[in-house]
C-alpha cells in the first residue's frame, strides 16, 4: 500500500509562494476532529495545541515541561492520541505521543516519533508530492 499526497501551495505576500507537505488526519480522544498536519522531520515528536487537546479531551494530567523549538522554549504536556490517515480505500490507524503546547495556535506538526516509524516517507518536492508507505504489513484497509 502506498498513499500519495500533494504539497499544499501556500501563497505569501512579499515572501514568494511555498509548498508544504500537508496531510489530513483524524484525531481521536474522547472527541474527534479532522485537521491538516504539516510533516516536520525536524521535530522529535508530534505537536498539537492545547485547544486541540482540550477539544479531544486528552489526558493532560502529566507534568508541564519545557519544550524547545526554534522560537524558544514553551511549556508543554506530553500526552497521546489516536490518529487515522485515509486515502481512497486505504486507512492506517495508530496511537502516537504528542506534545501539547500551551502557547501554540497552529495546525498540528507531525514530528518523527512513531509517525516516521510507521511510514517510509518519500518526499518529491520537485514534483510537489510525497508518498507514505506503511512499514507494517498489518496496516491496511
Amino acid at each position, binding site marked *: 500500500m502506498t498513499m500519495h499526497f500533494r504539497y499544499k501551495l501556500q501563497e505569501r505576500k512579499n515572501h514568494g509562494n511555498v509548498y508544504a507537505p500537508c496531510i*489530513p488526519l483524524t484525531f481521536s480522544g474522547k472527541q474527534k*476532529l*479532522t485537521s491538516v498536519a504539516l510533516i516536520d522531520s525536524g521535530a522529535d515528536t508530534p505537536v498539537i495545541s492545547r*485547544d486541540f487537546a482540550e477539544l479531544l479531551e486528552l489526558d493532560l494530567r502529566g507534568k508541564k515541561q519545557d519544550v524547545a523549538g*526554534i522560537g524558544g522554549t514553551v511549556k508543554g504536556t506530553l500526552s497521546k492520541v489516536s490518529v487515522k490517515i*485515509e486515502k481512497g480505500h486505504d486507512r492506517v490507524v495508530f496511537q502516537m505521543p504528542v506534545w501539547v503546547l500551551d502557547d501554540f495556535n497552529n495546525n498540528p506538526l507531525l514530528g518523527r516519533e512513531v509517525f516516521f516509524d510507521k511510514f517510509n516517507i518519500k518526499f518529491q518536492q520537485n514534483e510537489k508530492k510525497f508518498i507514505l508507505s506503511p512499514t507494517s504489513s498489518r496496516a491496511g484497509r
Partner: protein
Amino acid sequence: MEQEFKFFMKEDFSQYKDEWVAISQNKVIASGKTAKEVFNKAKKQQPKTTPFITKVRGNEAMLF
C-alpha cells in the same frame, strides 16, 4: 474527510489568513481566531459530523 481535504488543497483561502476555518461539503461553514471557536461553531451546525478544521497560513515564514 477526503472531500474536505481536496477542497482545502485547491481553493484560495486568502480571505481567511491567520484564521481557523471549518470546511464541510466544499464550503467554509465557520471561521474564527481559535480552533475551539471554530470547532464549536461547526459542531453546532452539524452535530453528528466530525469537524474538519484547519488554520489558514498567514504571510509569515514558518521555521519549526
